[in-house]
């Protein structure tokens, strides 16, 4: 027991070692090929324009997929591989460096909305078949959505779509009858009834809830072992924890699917490669057909030097992700906005960036709203763009104030990096006369701790844009918005921000009708006002480098997936 415990501890220590090894400094990555003026964060696609079919892609992963069941998955990795074996009504189509574009997939368009904005209707394309040749009907899609209501069976079932629909009390197909919020007047038509208008609804039906599941083939929790394919590939073999092989699904008709190029004949997923093995293998090009789905392309800060090597750089796909990290300030324990602002200004965000591995692993930002979002207006903040602390200004703010003497920073105990961020904050706050205690939180329930009574004064969190990373609302509302009834702060509102006027404005804006541009502008204006009280401090916009084997073509880093987009990748023979 004891030695096991120390062994586990030392695993964490190793991770720390790898991360703190030698950070890449603050030199930004060199993205574009346009010379000196190039934007260092411009996306890079490796060997684009390739269209040859055939070959096998080896996907190296440090762990098995938690699940392949579209009805039980909240994971981006599953969503990425899911593109290969399931299709949804609409699809979030990845373009490197951009939020995914919502395009029709099983449906003929992105949906027809009723005048009141509360009914969305979709029509299925012709010629859609499952891997066994049976046609895909609207009932299969409805059944797929119904499964995601069985939350006592599927603990990871995605819920964004469900919470927008009318039928809140539904318990799923195993213990309940029929989901009334969805109608299937015929095999080609599916109608959704919403509680209130939802401009981003086409994005909600791009989530895996709408992947068709044939009721007769529903093996419940064992469905993950062989999900019935509606996409270009199907499961050939799946050895849990070791290897997954996908092969072509002959019943998939490319004429119905302009979104997936489906170039390789097979995908072989190796599910137990350590990160060290993956990064070594990719950097040394030991397997020219290899890619990885691990976060950060399985690269550690210590690999920065290799990433700068010209040969490796030519094989490195890179681009922004939708993810932005912030430092949350608990507005219930640090009530005074000026004190929060002082803390925000005293932070050395540049030093925090170093803890993440340097500029190669992300760009310093002053807002959670990215220029890639639709309708976003200019954001004003006093945070320095270069991340350097503004100590004098911070101290001036605190004059004559009742400043807390002791604060607590909580961090997930499995990640040394976040502890190191705490150390940076500790030093920064000392300048303001505040003692910061660093408190570890079990990684497995980090976020539920932040949502519960144990929320510390300061914590780190990340947000990857939600169901639609092009929508400002999908970032602002969950992070800073009110609860469902509008009377308190929302569930994933970690800073517990609640302001009578501003929260009410957000509550009302939720049900508003309008074009995405109009709504985007309104949400970003509110965000600007909320941010003037500093409930959170944006730090890093994640940027991922993913090295691929020399035979790999069309490799782009997905903004949502955070890894190589499997639907477009190809391999040269």
């Amino acid at each position, binding site marked *: 027991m004891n030695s096991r415990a120390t062994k586990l501890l030392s695993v964490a220590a190793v991770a720390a070692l790898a991360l703190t090894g030698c950070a890449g400094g603050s030199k930004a990555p060199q993205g574009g090929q346009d010379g000196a003026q190039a934007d260092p964060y411009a996306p890079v696609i490796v060997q684009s324009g390739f269209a040859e079919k055939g070959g096998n892609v080896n996907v190296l992963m440090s762990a098995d997929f938690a699940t392949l069941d579209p009805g039980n998955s909240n994971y981006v990795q599953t969503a990425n591989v899911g593109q290969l074996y399931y299709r949804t009504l609409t699809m979030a189509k990845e373009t490197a460096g951009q939020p995914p574009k919502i395009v029709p997939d099983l449906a003929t368009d992105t949906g027809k909305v009723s005048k009141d904005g509360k009914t969305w209707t979709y029509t299925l394309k012709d010629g859609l078949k499952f891997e066994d040749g049976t046609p895909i009907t609207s009932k299969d899609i409805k059944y797929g959505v119904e499964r995601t209501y069985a939350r006592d069976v599927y603990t990871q079932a995605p819920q964004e779509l469900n919470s927008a629909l009318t039928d809140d009390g539904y318990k799923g197909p195993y213990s309940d009858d029929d989901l009334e919020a969805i109608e299937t007047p015929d095999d080609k038509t599916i109608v959704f009834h919403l509680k209130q208008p939802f401009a981003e609804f086409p994005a909600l039906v791009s989530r895996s809830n709408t992947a068709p599941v044939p009721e007769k083939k529903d093996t419940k929790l064992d469905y993950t072992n062989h999900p019935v394919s509606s996409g270009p590939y199907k499961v050939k073999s799946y050895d849990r924890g070791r290897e997954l092989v996908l092969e072509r699904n002959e019943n998939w008709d490319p004429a119905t699917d302009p979104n997936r190029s489906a170039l390789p004949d097979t995908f072989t997923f190796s599910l137990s490669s350590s990160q060290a093995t993956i990064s070594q293998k990719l950097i*040394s090009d030991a397997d020219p057909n290899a890619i990885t789905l691990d976060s950060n392309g399985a690269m550690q800060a210590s690999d920065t030097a290799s990433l700068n090597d010209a040969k490796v750089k030519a094989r490195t796909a890179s681009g922004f992700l939708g993810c932005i990290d912030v430092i949350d300030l608990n507005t219930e324990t640090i009530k005074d906005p000026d004190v929060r602002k002082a803390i925000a200004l005293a932070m050395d965000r540049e030093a925090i960036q170093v803890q993440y591995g340097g500029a190669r692993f992300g760009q310093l930002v002053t807002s959670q709203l990215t220029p890639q979002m639709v309708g976003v207006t200019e954001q004003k903040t006093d945070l320095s763009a270069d991340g350097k602390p503004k100590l004098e200004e911070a101290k001036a703010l605190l004059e004559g104030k009742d400043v807390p003497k002791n604060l607590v920073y909580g961090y997930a105990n499995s990640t040394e990096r976040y502890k190191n961020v705490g150390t940076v904050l500790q030093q920064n706050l000392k300048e303001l006369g505040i003692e910061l205690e660093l408190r570890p939180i079990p990684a497995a329930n980090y976020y539920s701790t932040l949502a519960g009574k144990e929320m510390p004064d300061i914590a780190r969190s990340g947000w990857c844009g939600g169901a639609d990373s092009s929508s400002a609302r999908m970032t602002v509302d969950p992070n800073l918005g009110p609860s469902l009834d509008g009377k308190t702060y929302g569930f994933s509102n970690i800073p517990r921000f609640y302001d009578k006027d501003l929260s009410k404005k957000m509550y009302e804006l939720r049900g508003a009708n309008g074009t995405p541009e109009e709504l985007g502008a309104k949400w970003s204006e509110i965000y600007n006002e909320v941010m003037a009280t500093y409930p959170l401090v944006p730090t890093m916009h994640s940027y991922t480098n993913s090295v691929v084997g020399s035979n790999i073509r069309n490799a782009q880093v997905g903004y949502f997936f955070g890894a190589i987009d499997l639907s477009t990748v190809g391999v040269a023979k």
Partner: protein
Amino acid sequence: MVSFLFRRFGAMLLLLLVVSFITFTLFHFGPADPASAACGQECTPDRVEQARVALGLDKPFFVQYFAFLSGLVGPRMLGAPGAEQMCAWPCLGKSFQTNENVTDMIANALPYTLSLAIGAVLMWTIVGVGFGLLAAMRKGKLTDRFIVGASSIGVSLPIPVTGLVLLLVFVGTLGWFPFTTNQIVSPFGEAGFGAWVTNYFLAWVALAVLFSAQYVRITRNNMIETFSEDFMRTARAKGLSRRKIVFKHGVRAGITPIITMLGLDLGALLGGAVLTEQIFSVPGLGFTAVKAATSGDLPVTMAITMLAAFFIIFFNVLVDIAYAFIDPRVKVN
């Protein structure tokens, strides 16, 4: 002998029961909440409660514990109403994270750990005992000092360092060894014995560097002590060859503490070599245990802890039995 075995294995079962109870208790009352871990980041409090029900964690502690124990004696039903799953004997539950049958996970992971352990133990025993013996025979001479020095370096090199260096140099840069693949589990598989050896060789070396050092030390000290025994003088006075003196008389007498250590180390290693498996991508018990422990996967962690405890206790008994064979003065009763 039979009654001895009977009693020892009886005691072993009892001990395992205690270990299972302690592990279960630690998890149950520990800070990590498997339900919220299974639910993820965007999980509301009522969804955590639903997950708790789905995983059976809403039931009282003893009900959960006896449900777990019942799986050890017969089949067991798992899962939420409407989606029950039968879990065949011996049932260790299903993973909270992946819903895999834990018994299958263990059965799949064990051969990797076995491959790793067997090779590593052989390697470090040969190297460690060999050099320890050599050092003892050359006590105080240059060879001895060199071996003792090298082993004190070896013992202070942590696995992550040796492992990563070996990987970087012999796989990444020189390409003398292939990257470890999870497709080779057995020396008798399709790939053949040679492929099995090359697949695990560097991992063995990483473990052997660390463990050999301890074996050098214990062998050297023991053999030096043994060499000064009166019966060693007798052996020389008989006119025996050096080989017979050292091996037949010396090693036979000095081997017992080494056997003890070997038994304990092998027992511990079979529970999973956490760091080595991590670095060399060997999906054995240690690899599985780390993933399970960090994600609050109770059934998997329980099972591996129990198995590790079993191996340690089992090898303790084995060492005792081995003693009876080595040393006629030891009576098993």
